[in-house]
């Protein structure tokens, strides 16, 4: 039981608990906050996995942008105050939990029985800074994955437009003016 594992376990527990709390919380804002916590912890995991750039991006984009967006919407809609009224499908919850557990079981079984890839020897000194660095990432992005990169940018544009269009107010139809003879 090395220190790594202990740290891992502690952090993992926190992550899982945060996720669960997000799930179980009544208040949506609390859920969002728990999720942010979860993301933070995952970010630490990234650091541990020699992916510093990803870790940072995780914090800035995920926790910083996406979750903030969530919070905005929650507060806009007043979702935090929403109650859960009677459900029409009471069997949904137990069944879902059951299936989830089954899934977990199957996955765990797969991992435990087959996935014994251990992390190899630690990275060499040169690798520690090189692997996972923005440089390396960028190099790949702009060479091998250039096309997806560009497409992604386009995707973002589309998403932006979509978001705008979807939330646009229905302008009341103006009375069509008769084309006046000029």
């Amino acid at each position, binding site marked *: 039981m090395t220190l790594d594992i202990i740290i891992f376990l502690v952090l993992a527990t926190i992550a899982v608990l945060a996720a669960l709390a997000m799930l179980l919380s009544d208040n949506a804002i609390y859920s969002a906050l728990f999720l942010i916590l979860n993301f933070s912890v995952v970010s630490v995991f990234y650091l541990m996995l020699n992916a510093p750039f990803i870790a940072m991006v995780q914090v800035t984009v995920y926790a910083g942008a996406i979750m903030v967006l969530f919070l905005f919407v929650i507060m806009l809609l007043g979702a935090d105050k929403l109650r859960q009224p009677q459900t029409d499908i009471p069997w949904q919850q137990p069944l*879902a939990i059951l299936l989830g557990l089954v899934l977990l079981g199957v996955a765990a079984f*797969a991992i435990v029985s087959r996935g014994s890839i251990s992390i190899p020897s630690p990275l060499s000194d040169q690798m520690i800074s090189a692997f996972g660095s923005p440089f390396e990432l960028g190099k790949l992005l702009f060479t091998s994955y250039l096309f997806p990169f560009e497409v992604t940018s386009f995707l973002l544009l589309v998403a932006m437009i979509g978001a705008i269009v979807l939330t646009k107010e229905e302008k009341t139809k103006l009375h069509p003016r008769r084309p006046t003879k000029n």
Partner: protein
Amino acid sequence: MHDSSTAFSLSSLVPLIVVFPLLGVILNMLVGKRLGDPWAGIIASLMSGLAFVIAVLQFIGLFLDNFHATTITLAEWIVIGTLKIPWAFQVDTLSVTMMLLVTGVGTLIHVYAIGYMKGDERFHRFFIYLNLFIVMMLFLVGGNNYLMLFLGWEGVGLCSYLLIGFWFDKGANGVGNARAGRKAFVVNRVGDFGFVLALFLIFWTSGSLIFNDSFKYFEEKAKEHATVTAPAPAKAVEAKPAEGHGESEGPTTEQIATAITLLLLVGAAGKSAQIPLFIWLPDAMAGPTPVSALIHAATMVTAGIYMIVRSNVIFHLAPTSQMVVALVGASTAFLAGSIAMGQFDIKRVLAYSTISQLGFMIAAAGMGAYVAAMFHLLTHAFFKALLFLSSGSVIHGVEHGHHALHAHGGGGHDHHDAHAHNAQSDSHAAQASAASPDHHEFDPQDMRNMGGLRKQMNVTFWVYLIGAIALAGVFPFAGFWSKDEILADAWLIGSKQPYGVAVYVLLSVAAFFTAFYMGRQVFMVFFGGERTDAAKHAHESSWVMLTPLVILAVLSVIGGALNLPKFIPGGEALGKWIEHSVEVHAVGFNLTVALISTGVGLFGIFLSYLVYGRSPMMTMTDPLERLGFVFRFLNGKWYVDELYQAIIIRPIEGFATFAAFALDWDLWHDFFHDTIIAGGFRWFSGFLAGFVDKGIVDRFFDGLGGFVRETALNFREFQTGYVRNYALMVLFGVVAVLGYFLFVR
């Protein structure tokens, strides 16, 4: 027998004998209605007369040709396999004799009919039928094969039917005449059935229906049979394979001949009114008098005799049949003669007399005395035609007297030969009440309404008397010679075989009857006082009607000269003549028989004088009625019709009714069709519709549909509309696939 080889022979003209009357038929059919009375009749008589001329020419031709028979073939009629039947005339002495008779007497009667049918609305039609009759009769007597004979046979039957029911709207209940015609036709049919079977047998055995060919076959067979001695079953007369019947030898020639001849007798019994098929002839008196004279006295009824004479070859081979024929003829003569004594209708007496005389002829033919048969045929034709026509004259006279009495317009007299004639019975009241209102209770044919007519109708009286005496067989009139010859034959046969004695006795008694009833008739009609006013006012008929009567009377007197006995110079003329065509055994003059028959005849006349002549009837009651039951029996015609009605007609009608109503209508139609078939079908279709279609098929498909619906409804539950459910499904799928890949593979 050869086909005439001379460039022109009179016999080649023989087809014309048929052509002329046929022409008359066609002419009258086309323009007869327009020509009307009397020109239609004149044309018809002319055509008949021309046919007579042709017949005379044939007569002369035969003399010139040494009496050789010739065959004039016109065309092939039927050629099927081995059956070959031509349209061919056989000109030999026998057929020419008949031709002369038919056309000669026929022409006379045509002329008579012009006067008799005067004023009738269907005048021309009568002469169409008469001419057609002549055509058919000539086919009958002139054909050279059995099928032509049969054609003529049926044809004259048809004409007889047409002419009997000529006044089809008159008669008892308005249908009496039509019924009489139908009765004649139907009874004839029974005889024809026998005839046709005989034809089949003749063809079957001899392979041909042509007279000469068939007879040659039979003669050869007979010779074979004669040469083959008895004990040779293996070498029996050649059995036709078709007649095997499993016996090693077929029926003998004699057996076949007997079968054929008996069947021919059945046919002759129908046509010539013998026992048991004579019942139609008295009813046939419903026809106009010329018809009765021509068809039912002189010609058609003699067809049976002609047929037997023509088939003499076959008859010779069947002595049993000959005996049967003779006995049938003799019995008929006896029976009919007795009935005639009890009849009141003038024409009925003559009708039964005809049946009786036909019996004489049939008996003669049966005994093999063909000359006697033909002789009597001829003489009988003369005086019977004479008697009928004269009776027509009498009836006319009485009718006119009745009319004059009741002042029912002179002019066209309606013809009432069948007036109020109940074809079934002669009872006075029944028929009278069924009469037209004009003549209620007056029957101009009833002899009791006559009496003393010799004063008013002198000529008629004299010719009638001549006819009666000739019929009675008094020397030296025609009837004496011919009847005598038959009796002599019977005597001769009687000396050899017992049945001849029976024949002789029956015929002699019949001769007695004949004399009696003719005397009775003459005395009742012409002597004594008039019993009714109508008789008082009767008057003589026109010369058109009287002339043929006179001619016939002359013939009745001198007719005996045709076949006088051998010892008289010029005797046996007819015999020698017929001999060329028919195998005859001449029988000599038998003085004993002659004396006996003359005595019998005179006795009959004397007796009738005693009863009817000495104290003539002044009332309607016949003196003979004192005989009570006997007279009633005779008057009722031995109740033969009633017997037939009971044992034949009634069961048949009953069966017909049963078949029609119970079987056909109730059982077949109602029950079977409606109930079983229709009902069954309805049930079945109902079953199909209900049980099968609705019950099974519908339910199946409904069930199927329902099942699908239920399933769909159930499956519908999956589509909850909730996103979470759908997501759950996805998860479920993921887990399944994952599990599959991890654990199964």
